[in-house]
């Protein structure tokens, strides 16, 4: 009885130690990549003390990447990664088979859906032309007068048509109004992918601070990749500084 009891308790200890050892082995032997995070819908950021993360590679523009295949929900995919000059990795291609000789991360397809992106030319009141790339630009035609609210990096925060019932104030950025000269809608297919690295545990109360500073600062995540491309987060970097 005593021996069996000790044996079973040791089995439990072995499992816990095994989990730790496995993770350490994964980190020690895995390929390291740095990924850039993307903004998250602010309604579902917090899940307890977890920061919910999304990456640039979480949404892939299939046409832009030159991928013709279609993907089913829950299908396993390998996203081939390429390093940019800043040292951050971005998606180069997607494949259903294990790519050989390339750096890649394994993920699961959430869904594939048709989508559009827009390229717009706006002439402001001083007759200057501006090229803008709004995310959604429905119900607008050439000749409409539009006001954009842009942040310091030129990203569009909001926009509205002249004569609209609701005109939001541009608090955090700078307004730009003018007449739409050109609208180009580029139809594409977007693939939403999950990599199993979408949450990161932080100390109680710390998550909110990191989240609120995300717009202003850059949040990057260090990931270690197993041979089959499964990733595990090893560090979180805010403006290059390690978050503990």
């Amino acid at each position, binding site marked *: 009885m005593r021996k069996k009891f000790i044996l079973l308790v040791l089995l439990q200890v072995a499992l816990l130690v095994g*989990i*730790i050892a496995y993770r350490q082995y994964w980190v020690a032997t895995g390929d390291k990549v740095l990924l850039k995070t993307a903004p998250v819908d602010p309604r579902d950021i917090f899940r307890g003390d977890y920061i919910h993360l999304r990456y640039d590679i979480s949404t892939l523009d299939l046409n832009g990447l030159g991928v013709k295949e279609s993907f089913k*929900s829950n299908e396993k995919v390998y996203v081939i990664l390429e390093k940019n000059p800043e040292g951050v990795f971005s998606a180069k291609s997607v494949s259903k088979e294990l790519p050989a000789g390339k750096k890649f991360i394994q993920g699961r397809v959430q869904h594939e859906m048709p989508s559009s992106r827009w390229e717009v030319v706006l002439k402001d009141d001083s007759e200057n032309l501006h090229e803008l790339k709004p995310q959604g630009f429905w119900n607008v035609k050439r000749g409409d007068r539009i006001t954009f609210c842009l942040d310091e990096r030129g990203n569009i925060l909001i926009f509205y048509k002249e004569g609209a019932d609701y005109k939001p104030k541009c608090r955090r950025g700078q307004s730009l109004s003018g007449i739409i000269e050109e609208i180009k809608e580029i139809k594409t297919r977007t693939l939403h992918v999950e990599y199993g690295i979408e949450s990161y545990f932080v100390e*109680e109360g710390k998550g909110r601070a990191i989240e609120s500073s995300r717009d202003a600062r850059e949040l990057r995540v260090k990931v270690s990749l197993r041979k089959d491309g499964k990733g595990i987060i090893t560090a979180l970097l805010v403006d290059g500084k390690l978050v503990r």
Partner: protein
Amino acid sequence: MPPRKEDFSFQRKLEQEIELWLKEGILLPDQKERILERYRLLKRADEKAGPGKLATTISILGSILVGVGVILFIASNWSAIPNWGRLFIVFFSMLASYGLGFYLRYEAKNYPKVGASLILLGSLIFGTGMFLIAQIYHITVHYPNGPLLWGLFVLPLAYLLRFKSLISLAILVLLIWLGMEAHLRTSHYSYLETVTMVPLFFMAGVTLWGIGLMHREWKSLRIISTPYILIGSLITFFTGYILTFNLYGLRFESDALLIYYPGIAVLFLVAMIIRCLPEGKEKGWIPETLGLVILMAIVIYLALFFPKASPMSLRGDLRLFFNILFALEIVGLITLGFIRRYPIYVNIGLLFFALDVVARYFDVFWGLLPRSLFFILGGLLLLFGGIILERKRRKILASFNIKEADE
């Protein structure tokens, strides 16, 4: 000294033996009465000393509180404690409670109930420790694996020690695993309805119940059959209760859950077959086993073919069918409880009888009566129903109280 549990089983055997002695003429009827009276006195003394269950309950609650405390301590001092410190707390508190628990129960033997609760605490720290380690190292790979491993690693310990508390813990975390895994699997299917999980859990409930009955027929496992039967029958009745409502415009079948059904069905069949093997089974085992098999068959039909392959004419009628079935289940369970003097069955049967009456009252009279009258009548019905049920329940339980104390 109040008699221990083992003394009651001794007393039961003694009663059987005495009958033999009487027949063989070793004892006189007067002597028989005197011997039995002696043990009745012991039993009364034990009743006065207070139930042993109270000590067990209090020490189990204590274990849970300490377990929660350990986790909260680590969570609220997250940055103050380095990684190795957090791991040390997990491993040390787990091993200490296992060790001390084992010592108190089996070596020193002076606080067996507290010892058992400390072993439960060890298993609680083991499971929560696993989640804590996942947090420390940011391991986010497939969440349901956590409860699955927890359950699978606690189960052997539960069988070795024959603890109801550990069996209950393992069953509960494995049910959580089933729910998480099924939810994750179905979340990729856009047509998922909330009721799709009902047949899955109905099956799980019937299977747990069956496994419990299998344990009950085997002497060495009998002591840990109660958690299986209790949790299994509660889930079966709760899901059966859900099926009495008007849900038959929704979908019960789902391709996403197909993968679970063969496994559960095989487990159920094996349990049922093993149950039938031993000699000298309990009274009423045939209708009980048959009843469970029929319930399983019905729920498999629901899970596979509704509404996909069931004829139009059947769809609306299923509600009536499941209401009749539920009423039959209740009657069957209470009858079995009577025949077998098994209070769990009587209590669960009466509980769901009351719930069913309330639900049907709402269904039938909500639209027919003015609101005020509806509530007054409903309230009166509940009050009187409560009194009658409580009296009936007490009478039933008292009628086999002597037997119950022996269990």
